[in-house]
């Protein structure tokens, strides 16, 4: 009953009208955009906000006493104020604005690493991480003489929780794991992961790059220590992202970069650092993107994350069923809990070939290793074709994808 009510309120036709790019054609065909895991399209509300920023507000933030600077600063800080309830953070100053997921992870790797990781310590990641949640930890481990441990997965693409349990010990200094896998769609049991890590005395960083736009996230309920995500994957602009960190960790970490904005007082003898969040926000930020991310959050809130999640879940089921009807098609990533991503292979066809033909048909998918080479190696495949959905996708989009894959099979096999 409740469920139908949510879906009735969810009007995908109306939503599509907000995304002007969805009306364009590609290679003479209507665009079917199924590469949302890479980046989402932007609604008119966000585009208007970008134009409004440069036509009405442009000015540097946190500096000038003049009117425009005040307006820009206020608008920028409004986004932080919107992000706090969006992820249910306890404090606004626990929201650090960065360039994106990658920078957020690098910040934690560098600053938490300096403060807390020394020789013989251990960091745990998983076999399904994006390169940006692998390489920064490899570097920290190398620099500090720490050990990187990798939680394996089963064939379905689910974490081996027994192995995870057995890897935790009193040398574990951090667990860095993805909430939702960008290549498989697996939703990891993050609550349990965090509880177990905390029982071993280790904090947890969640890579929420593929979760923030699909699931309701409550950092306090999860009790997660760090949460990172990108604005451009949640209908916002590129060049802005978030690092949520618990106050106690952020206060205990040294600054990341240094320069303007992050200081309280500078003399040549000594510099005192600014308070949170500014301590971690050196230099002029991406003001336009910061402000407009707030508009993306408004957009999501207006539609409602619960409704989005439910709609996308049904569409994911539909996509999976329709694709599985194609002879010789194999889905990579068959976890019980999944979100928004279907990775697949056509037996005998290279993913690149399938992608080229789909492109000719106006269907945008991602092909390749999805920045998860170790994961592809785990499956012994060069890559996959990945369809990733967003709130504006429809069953018709999926029907066109399926027809395209069938055409690719006919041509290639």
């Amino acid at each position, binding site marked *: 009953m409740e469920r139908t009510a949510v879906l009735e309120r969810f009007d995908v036709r109306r939503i599509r009208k907000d995304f002007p790019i969805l009306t364009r054609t590609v*290679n003479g065909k209507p665009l079917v955009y199924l590469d949302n895991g890479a980046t989402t399209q932007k609604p008119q509300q966000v585009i208007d906000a970008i134009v409004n920023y440069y036509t009405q507000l442009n000015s540097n933030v946190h500096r000038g006493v003049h009117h425009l600077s005040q307006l820009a600063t206020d608008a920028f800080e409004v986004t932080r104020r919107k992000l706090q309830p969006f992820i249910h953070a306890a404090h606004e100053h626990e929201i650090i604005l960065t360039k994106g997921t990658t920078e957020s992870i690098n910040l934690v790797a560098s600053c938490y690493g300096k403060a807390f990781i020394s020789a013989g310590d251990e960091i745990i990641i998983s076999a399904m991480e994006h390169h940006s949640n692998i390489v920064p930890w490899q570097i920290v481990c190398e620099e500090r003489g720490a050990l990187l441990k990798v939680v394996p997965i089963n064939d379905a693409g689910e974490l081996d929780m027994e192995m995870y349990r057995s890897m935790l010990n009193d040398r574990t200094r951090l667990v860095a794991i993805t909430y939702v896998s960008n290549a498989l769609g697996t939703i990891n049991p993050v609550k349990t992961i965090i509880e177990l890590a905390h029982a071993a005395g280790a904090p947890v960083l969640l890579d929420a790059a593929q979760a923030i736009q699909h699931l309701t996230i409550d950092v306090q309920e999860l009790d997660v220590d760090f949460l990172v995500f990108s604005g451009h994957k949640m209908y916002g602009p590129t060049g802005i992202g978030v690092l949520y960190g618990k106050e106690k960790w952020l206060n205990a970490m040294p600054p990341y970069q240094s320069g303007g904005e992050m200081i309280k007082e500078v003399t040549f003898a000594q510099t005192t650092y600014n308070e949170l969040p500014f301590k971690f926000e050196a230099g002029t930020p991406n003001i336009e993107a910061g402000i407009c991310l707030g508009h993306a959050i408004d957009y999501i809130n207006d539609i409602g994350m619960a409704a989005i999640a439910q709609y996308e879940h049904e569409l994911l089921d539909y996509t999976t069923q329709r694709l599985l009807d194609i002879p010789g098609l194999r889905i990579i990533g068959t976890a019980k809990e999944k979100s928004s991503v279907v990775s697949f292979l056509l037996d005998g066809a*290279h993913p*690149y*070939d399938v992608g080229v033909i789909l492109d*000719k048909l106006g269907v945008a998918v991602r*092909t*390749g290793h999805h920045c998860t080479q170790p994961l592809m190696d785990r499956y012994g495949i*060069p890559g996959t074709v990945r369809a990733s959905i967003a709130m504006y996708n429809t069953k018709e989009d999926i029907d066109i994808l399926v027809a395209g894959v069938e055409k690719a099979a006919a*041509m*290639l096999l």
Partner: protein
Amino acid sequence: MTINEIQDELIDDFAFFDDWMAKYEYIIQLGKELPLIDEQYKKDEYLIKGCQSKVWLHADHQGGKVIFTADSDAIITKGLVGLMIKVLSNHTPREIANSELYFIDQIGLKEHLSPTRANGLLSMVKQMKLYAVALNAKI
């Protein structure tokens, strides 16, 4: 035939295809038919690093001419590689080094040679020319 005569002939051939499907079907067919490289050369040292599909390239010279053989794990790439070989193989190093490949653009496959295209084809053409330059210096 000279490199340009071969290019012109391909342009004429492709003019018969009236849509992208026919064109790609031809390329795929080419990819399927051509045994392009001796297995012993399908090793990492002959691999041209494209991001998604692998391309192996080997160059030999006979009677002053360069003979290219190549392969790819993706069939469309393999077909495109086949086209490059049709045009460039069996010419002198100097001809290859000085050649200008205009046919790709004219048969409407330019996108495959863009640097953002992750198929290794652009690197392959560069590598073919490098081989030719190197052989030219040797001969």
